């Protein structure tokens, strides 16, 4: 690595910029993967919570409370370094996406639960009274409304996952923080590089914050119309 000569002048800046943008791409992929995993797992968990028996609900509670109480970093270390010692070797990216997904699923389950509870129970009771089955009530009455209610919170979850992906640099996932640390080791330009990294994160997160705010006003409008 050190044998390679570093570019100088404008080329150096282009080299740093290009590396950081490549890292940003990996960050986005990692965020998207973890978000999809979170939503899928949370849909399953929220379903268990709504339709399952006492045992299922206890399991969901245990899952949510456990993964919300431990730091993402500890979880990633368990998945990446810990499981490798018992023969479950994972590459950095799958480990990062799995860890961030397991963590995100806990928060997402809470979001879904709040969304389902936000639909007035009188509607479900009315639907049951006209003979709909419980899954039909969920499918046709609760979910269409709950989906709109959870959208702002889901956007905030995506922002949190985006920020958490930075921790995946500790398990050598080649996202922006990891590449930035390597760049700093090569160039010693740490203030410039870490500030640029922050700017890249802001370029992704600020539009998402704006989207969350906009969705919140939209949900507020539909809620007021009811």
């Amino acid at each position, binding site marked *: 690595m050190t044998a390679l000569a570093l570019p100088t002048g404008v080329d150096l800046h282009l080299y740093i910029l290009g590396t950081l943008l490549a890292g940003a791409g990996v960050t986005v992929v990692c965020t998207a993967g973890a978000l999809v995993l979170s939503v899928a797992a949370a849909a399953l968990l929220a379903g268990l919570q709504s339709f399952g028996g006492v045992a299922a609900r206890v399991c969901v509670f245990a899952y949510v*409370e*456990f993964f*919300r*109480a*431990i*730091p*993402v*970093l*500890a*979880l990633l*270390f*368990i998945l990446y*370094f*810990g*499981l*490798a*010692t*018992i023969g479950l070797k994972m590459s950095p990216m799958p480990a990062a996406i799995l860890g961030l997904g397991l963590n995100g699923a806990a928060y997402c389950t809470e979001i879904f639960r709040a969304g389902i509870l936000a639909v007035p129970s009188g509607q479900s009771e009315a639907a049951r009274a006209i003979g709909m089955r419980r899954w039909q009530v969920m499918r046709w009455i609760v979910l269409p409304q709950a989906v709109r209610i959870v959208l702002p919170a889901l956007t905030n979850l995506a*922002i949190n996952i*985006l*920020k*958490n*992906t*930075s*921790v995946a*640099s*500790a398990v050598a996932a080649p996202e922006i*923080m990891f590449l*930035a*640390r390597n760049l*700093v080791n090569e160039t*010693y*330009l*740490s*203030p410039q*590089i*870490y*500030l640029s*990294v*922050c700017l890249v*994160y*802001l370029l992704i*997160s*600020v539009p998402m*914050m704006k989207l969350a705010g906009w969705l919140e006003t939209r949900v507020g409008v539909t809620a007021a119309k009811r």
Partner: protein
Amino acid sequence: MARNLETWMPLLLSAAVQTIELMLIAYAIGLVAGAFLVAMRLSTRRWLAATAGAYVTAIRGTPALAQLFFIYFGLAELGLVMSSYQAAIIGLGANAAAYVAEIYRAGIESIPRGQVEAARAIGMRTPMVYRYVVIPQMVTVVLPPLCNQGIVLLKETSVASLIAAPELMLRTRELVAESYMPLELYVIAALMYFALAFPLAQAVRLLEQRLRHPR
């Protein structure tokens, strides 16, 4: 394993105490700096409000890890050299301040404007309005999210291990390097965080219910 536990546990427990210390100091900084930030944010002076708003967005839009790296490695390059513990305290405190300021703001905005205007109308000045009208009522609104922020901060301290600040995760990594038993050690560390955060989370839940349905 049992003999390992005997040597590990005292080290890990003292590291957990360091984690709690780090969290409490950063939290205290966040609570105080957050108050200043929200005062700026609600100021009638445009530039003050805009500066505070930009600060909150910048902190909330970037990961704590990037902030810590900038403060610890970046500022050192610019001549401001800090120990990793100092950098962790300042970084996590500055991070918490932005979130705390948003919580305070939501609390202040939850008080109907009419009350503030009425207090003004009977001759109260701004400090009095806050002291006797706004703050007593806002406590119930801000207390649960403030406690939740404390829990978030407790977990966030783990990230400070990546700039080698002395706390639970760093000590765990050191023990892993010595013993090469990562699974056991990281699970123990995770359980220790759980033992700290889970009771707190349940307490906040109870508090929320109490505040929602006062007796």
